[in-house]
């Protein structure tokens, strides 16, 4: 592995020396080139990328110079007379065989890197990544830790009502925390449509496909925060499901793990008032529901039904409303929120929906009511996160 790496970079260096890639690598700070990344794979990919780019630049230099020469030298306005030849087997053989040899030269290092990329064996820890519309779920398989990770950029910034922050659209509520210098194996799958988990600096891009669990791996060499985005069109909020990986030292990682396993604080449910719940409800609604059902509840029928004056939202019993949010509608775009939202969050959302947009039903739903509906359902996912 080591010797191959040095071979590759040697090849690359010697080629970039003559190629055009020197100024390109110097401009890397301005974000116009592939990041070198922080894993052996991402660095190998970077070297390959620079190598092929240098070869292409070299060929381009020759072809374009020849073309420019022809265009100036053989103009009729300079008195050029057409020659009378229309084939030359030797020449044609040369430009059939030479590209083939160049391709072979590129194929060998590429194959070696590819074999390495697809070798997920001997991993130190395994993370199961599940994409769903529009968030990532991370499960540390042997550590009994799991959580959802969602965009944390406020909607006001997206709609131009607030100044955009430094990490606009590239920030999440809970980053994936990984240790450095350990081989991390990712198992990637999806709950609904196809997503793609892409962090350029880790050199990992893996499609999350429902019904499949595909593997990938990364060994992060430097602590830091690495950002990426979903790379496969996955519906309305495809642009809004970023990935943030926080790489920490092994010691910090152990501490972090210990913190995660602490029991949660019990929810504060005593002072459950209409105005506070409406405010919280609106916030959660904008984050989890508004992409499909719209800010004004009008939806986009028939795929995303309108909530305004819908029989579920304004009618009774309220349990029908709670169940629908908890369990979703199988076979439709409506996901089950039981596994990803707390009782308090669901209660707030439902209270908001039942009182916003002139509904004014006056219904105030408490987390206990949601908990009761959870217990009534046999769905295994219905336990509170």
């Amino acid at each position, binding site marked *: 592995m080591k010797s191959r790496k040095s071979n590759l970079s040697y090849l690359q260096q010697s080629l970039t020396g003559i190629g055009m890639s020197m100024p390109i690598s110097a401009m890397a700070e301005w974000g116009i080139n592939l990041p070198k990344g922080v894993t052996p794979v991402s660095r190998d990919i970077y070297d390959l990328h620079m190598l*092929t780019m240098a070869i292409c630049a070299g060929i381009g230099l020759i072809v374009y110079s020849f073309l420019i020469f022809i265009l100036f030298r053989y103009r009729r306005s300079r008195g*050029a007379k*057409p020659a009378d030849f*229309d084939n030359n087997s030797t020449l044609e053989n040369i430009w059939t065989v030479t590209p083939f040899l160049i391709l072979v030269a590129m194929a060998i290092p590429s194959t070696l890197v590819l074999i390495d990329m697809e070798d997920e064996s001997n991993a130190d820890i395994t993370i199961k990544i599940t994409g769903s519309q529009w968030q990532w779920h991370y499960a540390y398989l042997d550590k009994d830790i799991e959580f959802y990770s969602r965009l944390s950029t406020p909607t006001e910034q997206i709609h131009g009502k607030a100044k955009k922050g430094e990490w*606009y659209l590239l920030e999440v509520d809970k980053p994936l925390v990984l240790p450095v210098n350990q081989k991390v194996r990712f198992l990637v799958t999806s709950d609904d449509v*196809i997503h*793609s988990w892409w962090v350029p600096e880790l050199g990992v891009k893996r499609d999350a*496909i429902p019904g*499949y669990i595909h593997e990938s791996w990364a060994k992060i060499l430097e602590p830091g925060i690495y950002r990426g985005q979903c*790379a496969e069109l996955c519906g309305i909020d495809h642009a809004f499901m970023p990935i943030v990986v926080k790489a920490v030292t092994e010691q910090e990682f152990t501490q972090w793990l210990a913190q995660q396993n602490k029991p949660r604080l019990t929810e504060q449910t005593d002072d459950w008032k209409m105005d506070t719940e409406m405010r919280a409800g609106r916030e959660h609604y904008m984050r989890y529901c508004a992409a499909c059902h719209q800010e004004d509840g009008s939806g986009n029928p028939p795929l995303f039904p309108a909530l305004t004056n819908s029989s579920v939202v304004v009618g009774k019993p309220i349990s029908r409303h709670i169940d629908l949010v908890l369990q979703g509608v199988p076979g439709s775009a409506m996901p089950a929120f039981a596994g990803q939202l707390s009782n308090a969050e669901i209660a707030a959302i439902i209270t908001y929906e039942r009182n916003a947009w002139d509904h004014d039903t006056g219904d105030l739903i408490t987390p206990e009511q949601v908990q009761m509906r959870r217990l009534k359902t046999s769905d295994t996912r219905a336990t509170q996160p």
Partner: protein
Amino acid sequence: MNMQSDSITEQAKEDAPKGISSFLKHWVFTTNHKDIGTLYLCLSFMMFFVGGAMALVLRAELFIPGLQLVSPNFYNVLVTMHGLIMLLTVIMPVAVGLANWQIPMMIGAPDMALPRLNNMSFWILVFAILLLGSTIFMDGGGPNFGWTMYVPLSTSFGPPSTDFLIFSVHMLGISSILGSINIIATIINMRAPGMTWMKLPMFVWTWLVTAFLLLTIMPVLAGAVTMMLADRNFGTSFFNSAGGGDPLLFQHLFWFFGHPEVYVLILPAFGVISQVIPTFSRKKLFGYNRMVVATLSIAFLSLTVWAHHMFTSGLPLAAEIYFMYATMLIAIPTGIKIFNWLATMYRGSITFETPMLFAVGFIVMFTFGGFTGIMMSIAPSDFQYQDSYFIVGHFHYVLVPGAVFAYMAGIYYWLPKWCGRMYSETLGQWHFWLMVIATNLTFFPMHFLGLAGMPRRIPDYALQFTNFNMIVTVGAFIFGFSQLIFLYNVVRTIKRGSRTTAQVWDGAEGLEWTLSSPPPHHSFQTPPDIK
């Protein structure tokens, strides 16, 4: 088919419509290859503006970060429509239009072999386009999952209009299949005596190969979308993993169509370039035989590389290695083509009329698209390029300065022949240079965006991508508006361009230049003498 009926139709064409009904009758019922060619070209140009306007809305939304003009759903609808319209209703019809006009004239035939079929394949296309366009106005919005129609986004999660999209794709497919059958029948049966296979003009050769390619792939697409239809409506689970189906199967089927499809778009473009370059270099095409072989091998290879669109989808290692090698091989025949065009120009006597400018622009920028193609064939690197703006930059380089430039070259090249009048060279050159500047302004920065990590098909992006996106948007608007020059130039040519000779270009060789300009209604009534 005698001279009399000929002159009558000519007459009808010459003095504008006597009544609207006879005008409509003429164009709706026409079975003449030139009329149908004109219809294809006009339809294609109209759709070019429709698809282009959609692209401009997308680019306007992307001018600055944040959601400004359109909702994310409508953005996705436009992304889908822009792709489908540009590929299936702009570039394919323009190639078919050129084929209709040129193939009978180039092989010394009076018309296409199957004139009624020709009329039918055009009008099916029109209705397919109407159906496709109507989906935007349906409840729940138009298809919003990209032209690739990946399941399950397009099945369980697709809007109701998806079913209409599927029928539209079926109709587009039928239209292409009928058109291809006609082209194959024409080239095989209608060649003038003495027009042997290895004397066929390159444009005819490339179209023959393209037609066979279309016959191979269109049924596969039709099958795939039919399975989608069944999954959506009849409770089957071809692609539904919850029912034991396989979402990846759809991708395999789609790209078995989708990859050769890009060669369907570019092969006739290669043909056009192979006609234009020798004319303005005043020298025979270099290495004709190997050009034919290269065309055939590109077509064959294109059927064997589809999964390079799926490197990140979890293919087994062996499959990844195979598809990487096979993809890299395509560089060889493509390289032969480019080198042979250069060798054609070498020691020629070159002038730069508009068609030649477009052809040279094609060679330069298509080659660049080829380079990024080679970079992406390297599977490990492709893991980083896949679904980023790098690929958007790549395929726009092969489709816009590739296919579009080549067809522009073809239209400027043959327009004087078709209407017997010369276009304005000044306007043509303005059009070319504006397009060169706009194309590079639009598509070149996309590579940087992709490498820096911007995914494709997003209506909003992180702040670090702002500057390049602004440049791209400016370029796109220049590109769009520069087409108005072309529109004006074509209309002006037809109305009051100066008369041209039959030969038009002094270096042009081929049967079409032996006919008058404009050519008679039935191109060759008696077989021409072939040297």
